[in-house]
């Protein structure tokens, strides 16, 4: 073999190793977390872990239900507050806003999507928590699901708005012209032709937003109060539940990781697994929703 040939072959092997390394990191992370969480699943039991309402590592009680409820409610709150606004903003930018607004706003939204979450958390802590504290309600301390939902809503807004805007813009112009030529108003065109055609892209924007909401850690720790408790209405009407303190799955890991040992540590890995499975469920639910509608959609 010539010298060139040897170099060529050597580089192929080096690059193959890099490819393998990247893949093995993925596998490694998955296996490692599963292995570490196994004792928790084994000793505590999957059902006890998922349905247990008490999390007292000192007494060997590891119930994740409060954290699942916390993550679920705060995400629900963020979606209720942020999703309609984000989608309207995406539609506005893609179809309605004049060009000069688009030119200014699009890069700013991309910028806002990259702002560190700790900055959003800081804003929540300094501005929102004191504001929420003003609401006269028994047990309301400002820290809690409402503050966290608002922070999260603001955080997912740029993500959902910019991804859905791209999806709407990528709908071919021919559809728009076809709709207008039939005598649609621009709004009828948007609602009946453009949005249905962009459905799958909009859905992935929502999934991305949901993933970001469920996975957010630091901003949540800063404003949600972190108390391990089932969110409660504290005796008031149902919406009062959002004034309750809570803890998210992500927060549970971050807050306790650095001093956990043994079964406690394993339970935190199990928390990670539950979080991951939750996100996977959201993803595949969205995908199922998408394929159900595929017949009328693009081939």
């Amino acid at each position, binding site marked *: 073999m010539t010298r060139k040939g040897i170099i060529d072959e050597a580089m192929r092997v080096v690059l193959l190793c890099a490819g393998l390394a990247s893949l093995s990191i993925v596998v490694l992370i998955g296996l490692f977390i599963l292995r570490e969480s196994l004792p928790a699943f084994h000793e505590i039991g999957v059902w006890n872990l998922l349905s247990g309402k008490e999390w007292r590592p000192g007494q060997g009680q590891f119930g994740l239900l409060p954290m699942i409820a916390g993550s679920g409610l705060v995400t629900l709150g963020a979606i209720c507050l942020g999703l309609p606004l984000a989608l309207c903003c995406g539609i506005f930018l893609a179809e309605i806003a004049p060009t000069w607004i688009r030119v200014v706003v699009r890069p700013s939204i991309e910028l806002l999507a990259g702002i560190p979450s700790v900055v959003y958390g800081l804003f929540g802590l300094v501005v929102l928590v004191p504001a929420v504290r003003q609401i006269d309600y028994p047990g309301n301390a400002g820290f809690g699901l409402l503050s966290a939902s608002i922070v999260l809503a603001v955080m997912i807004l740029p993500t959902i708005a910019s991804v859905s805007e791209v999806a709407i813009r990528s709908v071919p112009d021919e559809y728009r012209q076809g709709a207008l030529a039939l005598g649609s108003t621009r709004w009828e065109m948007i609602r009946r032709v453009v949005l249905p055609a962009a459905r799958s892209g909009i859905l992935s924007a929502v999934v991305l937003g949901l993933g970001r909401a469920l996975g957010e850690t630091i901003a949540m720790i800063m404003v949600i109060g972190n108390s391990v408790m089932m969110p409660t209405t504290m005796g008031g009407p149902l919406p009062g539940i959002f004034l309750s303190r809570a803890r998210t799955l992500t927060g549970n890991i971050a807050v306790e990781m650095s001093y956990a040992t043994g079964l406690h540590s394993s339970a935190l890995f199990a928390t990670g697994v539950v979080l991951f499975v939750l996100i996977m469920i959201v993803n595949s639910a969205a995908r199922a929703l998408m394929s159900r509608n595929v017949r*009328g959609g693009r081939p």
Partner: protein
Amino acid sequence: MGTDAPEARLRTVDYSLFYGSFRALRDITIDIPENSITAIIGPSGCGKSTFLRSFNRMNELIPGVTVTGKVLLDGEDIFHQNVVALRRRVGMVFQRPNPFPKSIFDNVSYGPRIHGIRDRGTLAAIVERSLRDAAIWEEVKDDLQKSALALSGGQQQRLCIARALAVEPEVILMDEPASALDPVATMRIEELMQSLKQKYTIVIVTHNMQQAARVSDYTAFMMTDEERAGNLVEFGATKKIFTTPADRRTEDYISGRFG
């Protein structure tokens, strides 16, 4: 201009169109006779399509477009009308078939639906009638729920014609409707146009002179002047334009000396 022509449905008077400060169409005056096919021909870039899109105000979608002069539909200035109502009366078929990513049924019923027809039975009747008129009913009647994008190019174009017919327009504008199709599909579209002209006034833009000679009753020849603005050079019965054109430039173009 054709004194033997039937009454004009569509007419423009000193119509000019500008992209910003650039004049793309210059002072076009034309009377388009009803229940006939009028072909607009001319070299590429002479503003044929732009002119066609003036009749349903599609040029308004391009920022910076302004117009002067008049475009009249049944004697009324279209720029003073509600654009949505106008486009219902003046339908359009595009160069590339553009069915919506919906079922065949939903494509055809789209227009009637937005114009306020909700009743399922009425819609079904309109869909069938339109598909029959567009000569595609026999091919699709068994599966109207099939995605329109699963059809062949020629079928898609006839579906688009059916979609335009479903809102019962008075005028149909066709922008090179067969240029993206194979010869067989092209022939079917041309046959279809012949049957449609009984009920509708059709204006077609084509770069294909044989097609214009085959299908149209009247022909308008457009060309750019020295400032690159589109002009109407000559308009008259197709037979006359293709045999004894009045203008030297028309003759040159028809006989293939340029363009």
